[in-house]
């Protein structure tokens, strides 16, 4: 709600000054319907990103771990929704202005004001409460999906799912409330339009701490350097990337949070263009970089480049021009291979490249906001990146260590070699290849 007011007020004021009565031509209930429609349609686009992550990760793991990564992805989406319903939403949005944590209670829609005999639809800034819940819920699932890709092929299923409960029920909503719930970070002037930091870096930090505590896959790093473990299906990884690209129009476009006026419609359209241009910039930059540096185009890094471009523009997809969006995404596309090389040197095993794409580009995108939005300062952006980074590092490290102590988080070496599909699920993703 706070996020909505923050964005609508300047636009509404502008409309009142420039267009006068024309802005009032849309009735409150009409705006209510359009705002709700935006949330619902953009929301199911973001829901589909779960499919994108599932396909990207399926393609990037070896075939002996594909069924397990599919289980994780469908479980993540389900758990995220349940946790956000039971505790997350109120923890995030039931927060006092300038506060640090929301309330512990189950969410329920408050529709009374809109269904009464004299309904109050406000100034075009209202929407069905359930549509807002739905739109916010699908974001939680995105943050959790980021973690599964990094830790694939060696983490135990159930401890991972317990971590997802902690992440989606508590870690994500608490820090989300600081900004989107109207908490202390938003008072401090931080700006993160659709979640370069709040969603993507959060997933990235949780993935990084997990990767450090879990360790690399057996044989990934040896005394002679790093040994690549090529993924099982490049077409699936490419399909997953395209699905994420599609979903991102909902992710960023829906974050305008309103479609009840021409000004908002123009903004949503501009966001679509910038989102697309940033991804395009990321792809082309990664394409050229890998050709020049590695001597050959590297498909999976180019796919990461698309995601990196998208993450980079997510903190501010409205203010840039199309050309600026290409450049912001392009920088993301260069940061990806640099981060991949750095992680290899540091012996941090990130199976799908989620840390470069979501964490590194998330930080870049957040710090780049003041370049195109003069109302935002670098210091407030650094504060937001550092505060949320510190919070997620500390909380997820604690969660990982508790899980490690109680249940263990890593499968046995024997199980890892056999593949998680056999050891964790007792099945194979492609049984006919071997048993026909």
């Amino acid at each position: 709600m706070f996020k909505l007011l923050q964005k609508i007020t300047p636009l509404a004021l502008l409309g009142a000054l420039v267009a006068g009565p024309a802005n009032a031509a849309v009735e409150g209930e009409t705006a209510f319907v359009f705002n709700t429609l935006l949330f619902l349609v953009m929301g199911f686009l973001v829901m589909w990103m779960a499919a994108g992550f599932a396909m990207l990760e399926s393609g990037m793991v070896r075939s002996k771990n594909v069924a397990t990564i599919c289980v994780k992805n469908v479980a993540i989406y389900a758990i995220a929704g349940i946790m956000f319903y039971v505790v997350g939403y109120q923890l995030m949005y039931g927060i006092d202005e300038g506060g640090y944590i929301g309330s512990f209670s189950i969410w329920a829609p408050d529709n009374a004001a809109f269904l009464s005999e004299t309904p109050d639809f406000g100034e075009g800034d209202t929407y069905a409460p359930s549509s807002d819940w739905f739109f916010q819920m699908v974001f939680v699932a995105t943050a959790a999906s980021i973690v599964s890709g990094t830790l694939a092929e060696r983490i135990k299923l159930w401890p991972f799912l317990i971590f997802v409960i902690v992440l989606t029920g508590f870690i994500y909503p608490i820090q989300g409330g600081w900004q989107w719930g109207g908490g202390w970070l938003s008072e401090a002037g931080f700006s993160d339009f659709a979640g370069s930091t709040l969603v993507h870096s959060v997933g990235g930090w949780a993935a990084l701490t997990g990767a450090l505590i879990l360790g690399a896959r057996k044989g990934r790093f040896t005394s002679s350097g790093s040994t690549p473990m090529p993924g099982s299906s490049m077409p699936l990884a490419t399909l997953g990337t395209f699905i994420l690209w599609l979903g991102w129009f909902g992710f960023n476009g829906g974050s305008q949070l309103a479609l009840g006026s021409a000004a908002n419609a123009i903004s949503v359209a501009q966001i679509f263009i910038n989102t697309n241009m940033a991804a395009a910039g990321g792809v082309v930059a990664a394409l050229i970089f890998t050709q020049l540096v590695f001597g050959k185009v590297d498909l999976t890094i180019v796919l990461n480049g698309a995601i990196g471009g998208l993450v980079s523009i997510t903190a501010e997809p409205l203010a840039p021009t199309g050309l600026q969006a290409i450049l912001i995404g392009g920088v993301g596309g260069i940061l990806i291979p640099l981060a991949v090389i750095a992680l290899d040197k540091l012996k941090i095993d990130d199976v799908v490249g989620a840390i470069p794409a979501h964490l590194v580009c998330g930080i870049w995108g957040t710090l780049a906001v003041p370049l195109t939005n003069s109302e935002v300062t670098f210091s407030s952006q650094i504060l937001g990146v550092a505060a949320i980074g510190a919070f997620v590092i500390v909380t997820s490290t604690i969660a990982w260590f508790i899980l490690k102590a109680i249940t263990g988080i890593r499968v046995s070496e024997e199980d890892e070699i056999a593949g998680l599909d056999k050891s964790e699920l007792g099945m194979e993703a492609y049984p006919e290849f071997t048993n026909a």
Partner: protein
Amino acid sequence: MKMIVAIIKPFKLDPVREALTSVGVEGLTVSEVKGYGRQKGQTEIYRGAEYAVNFLPKVRLELVVSDDKVDAVHDAIVTAAKTDKIGDGKIFVLPVEAATRIRTAETGDAAL
């Protein structure tokens, strides 16, 4: 009777099969195999890191022919599979003690 085992480059399978048909070979068995010879594999690149692929994909042909056809079959395979580059493969000729066509119980050259 002799068994001829040939390891060839996969893309040479069709030319070799045509050459064998033209010298009167009526049947053969093919499998996809991996291996290396003196070329010792090759390197590939994934996410910026080079790695050695020790085993290269090859096609393995097996066929049994009567003694009088061995030379013609051997020459047909060499001619069709040759690219003059490393990795063209090998041909092995082995003696065969007996052969039986299961359907008719014919034996010897008649079974081929």
